[in-house]
């Protein structure tokens, strides 16, 4: 049960998917930090570091990582604070800047659809990695490994299968230790820190490319940060936890991935760990990091789908997301042997619209609602929302198109850097439209949606 606007409300969907988190469920700042760390513990973060190593030497890698992560820390902390203040998840928060139906569209774009894609991609990577470690066995073919990997990951989230849950849970702290060990092992084998700092690719890319690359890696994570920060015991718990984990640990992961690639010459970090002789167990643990991330993918996607459809429980949506993701990975990627590039492309395209959603949220919460309209975010049965917030929808679409045009065609609106343009355009456009129409006394929010007793 949760108390909403003075009334006791039953949590019919689970995990307060459509309700604010009650006080007895709040958790410490350290707890929130640990949850974010579990999400970040994914081999893809190390692969991203390898990507940087193809563009920069280590000093420049560190520079672009720090700048990119500092921007992520600020952007994410601002959005996390909204969850900490209102105790509402991302999909509920969207009801104000986008309207109730607009929030459904926003939820589809930022979480419901792309997280199924990323669930599939992570599961596929799991299958590939298992195949690299144990080639030649029927159970370790990419298709079969993707299938059992996806099912196991889904089971963890669906029924909280204890053995699996605790396995993925206890993996996380050592996972970070393992990356540190891998880094020092690479330095040790390749001839010390002198070799590490001397290693560099043939051509160094511009700084802006790397900063955009780093920011783009986790921009969507910033937008869904309230899903976790709403549990923080202090309003700022999620913001502090978010900023610290991104600034320190994401920088570390990118640095470690880049260093291992520069020193071993292998763009595949899993192969690099194998070359160093850290053992098969270490390799298995490396891929188990994906487990905790896919848990979160299916969990966040389930929250989004509940807020879109208003039917079925969280656990059922977790199963649906997991089954679809697993089928895509095992059948498309494994059986048919086809690249998941179309899915990655679709996820990436939706990704252009994710930072604009975050920018619109920030503009509405901190500026329009607080300083102009003098309204506070309220949730609970009977609360009235606009059906569509027109400036919010326009800003989201325009920002996404600007980011896409800048990235694909180099169009400068205004900087030519994809994520930056997406955020700037949506942030400014939302404020211009919302404040302008509000001051002019014109109605910019259409329709009315009254929150049901279930919170939907």
């Amino acid at each position: 049960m949760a108390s909403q606007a003075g009334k006791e409300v039953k949590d019919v969907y689970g995990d307060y998917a459509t309700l604010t988190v009650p006080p007895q469920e709040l958790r410490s700042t350290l707890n929130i930090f640990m949850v974010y760390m579990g999400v970040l513990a994914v081999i893809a973060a190390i692969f991203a570091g390898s990507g940087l190593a193809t563009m920069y030497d280590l000093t420049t890698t560190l520079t672009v990582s720090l700048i990119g992560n500092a921007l992520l820390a600020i952007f994410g902390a601002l959005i996390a604070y909204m969850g900490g203040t209102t105790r509402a998840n991302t999909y509920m928060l969207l009801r104000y800047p986008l309207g109730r139906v607009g929030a459904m569209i926003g939820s589809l774009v930022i979480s419901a659809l792309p997280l199924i894609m990323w669930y599939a991609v992570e599961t596929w990577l799991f299958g590939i990695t298992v195949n690299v470690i144990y080639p030649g066995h029927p159970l370790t073919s990419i298709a079969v490994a993707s299938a059992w990997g996806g099912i196991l990951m889904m089971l963890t989230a669906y029924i909280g299968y204890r053995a699996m849950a605790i396995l993925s849970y206890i993996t996380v702290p050592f996972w970070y230790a393992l990356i540190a060990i891998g880094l020092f092992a690479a330095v040790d084998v390749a001839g010390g820190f002198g070799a590490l700092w001397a290693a560099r690719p043939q051509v160094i890319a511009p700084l802006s490319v790397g900063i955009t690359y780093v920011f783009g890696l986790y921009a969507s994570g910033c937008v869904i940060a309230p899903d976790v920060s709403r549990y923080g015991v202090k309003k700022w718990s999620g913001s502090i936890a978010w900023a610290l984990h991104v600034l320190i640990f994401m920088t570390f992961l990118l640095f470690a991935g880049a260093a291992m690639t520069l020193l071993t010459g292998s763009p595949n970090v899993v192969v690099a760990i194998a070359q160093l002789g850290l053992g098969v167990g270490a390799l298995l643990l490396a891929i188990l990091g994906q487990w905790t991330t896919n848990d979160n993918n299916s969990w966040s996607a389930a929250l989004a789908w509940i807020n879109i459809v208003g039917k079925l429980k969280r656990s059922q949506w977790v199963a649906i997301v997991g089954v679809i993701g697993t089928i895509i990975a095992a059948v498309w990627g494994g059986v048919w042997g086809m690249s998941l590039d179309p899915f990655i492309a679709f996820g990436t395209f939706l990704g252009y619209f994710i930072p604009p959603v975050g920018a619109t949220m920030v503009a509405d919460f901190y500026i329009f609602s607080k300083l102009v309209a003098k309204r506070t975010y309220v949730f609970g049965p009977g609360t009235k929302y606009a059906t569509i917030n027109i400036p919010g929808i326009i800003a989201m679409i325009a920002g996404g198109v600007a980011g896409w045009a800048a990235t694909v065609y180099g169009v400068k609106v205004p900087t030519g850097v994809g994520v930056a343009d997406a955020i700037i355009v949506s942030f400014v456009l939302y404020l211009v439209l919302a404040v302008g129409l509000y001051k002019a006394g014109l109605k910019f929010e259409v329709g009315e949606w009254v929150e049901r007793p279930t919170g939907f």
Partner: protein
Amino acid sequence: MSASPQKVKRFAEVSIAVMLMLGIVTLALAPFTGHYRGFYLSIFLGAIIVVASVVYLPIVRMKKAEDLRGVGVPAIQSLWISTSMGLGYVVTALAPYFNINFSTAVALFVIGWVMLIYGCYALLKISKESKVPLSV
């Protein structure tokens, strides 16, 4: 049937103390690993276990037994880190890179399994008794 709050608190303290002792043992084994790589591995993982236990043990001790959540949360956090490092010994002790001599490697491997199994048991038991979810 639930155990009394005093028993839960006592179990949490003993569990952290067990991890602390095992962590100290792994630190003591570091000079006997026979190679600098094994030495640094033992120092690194052992130090994390000792720090996680030394920091959290007084926090658990200061909590009133009746405050089951107050006892459960720090106990689970401490055991989480220690158990994870135990898993670390299991997967790295015998890895070729570290060149640890066989008897010490086996000792670390066994200690790792003990920490892993006992840690899982303690985590599940404390979580169940204190009603604190594992994902604290």
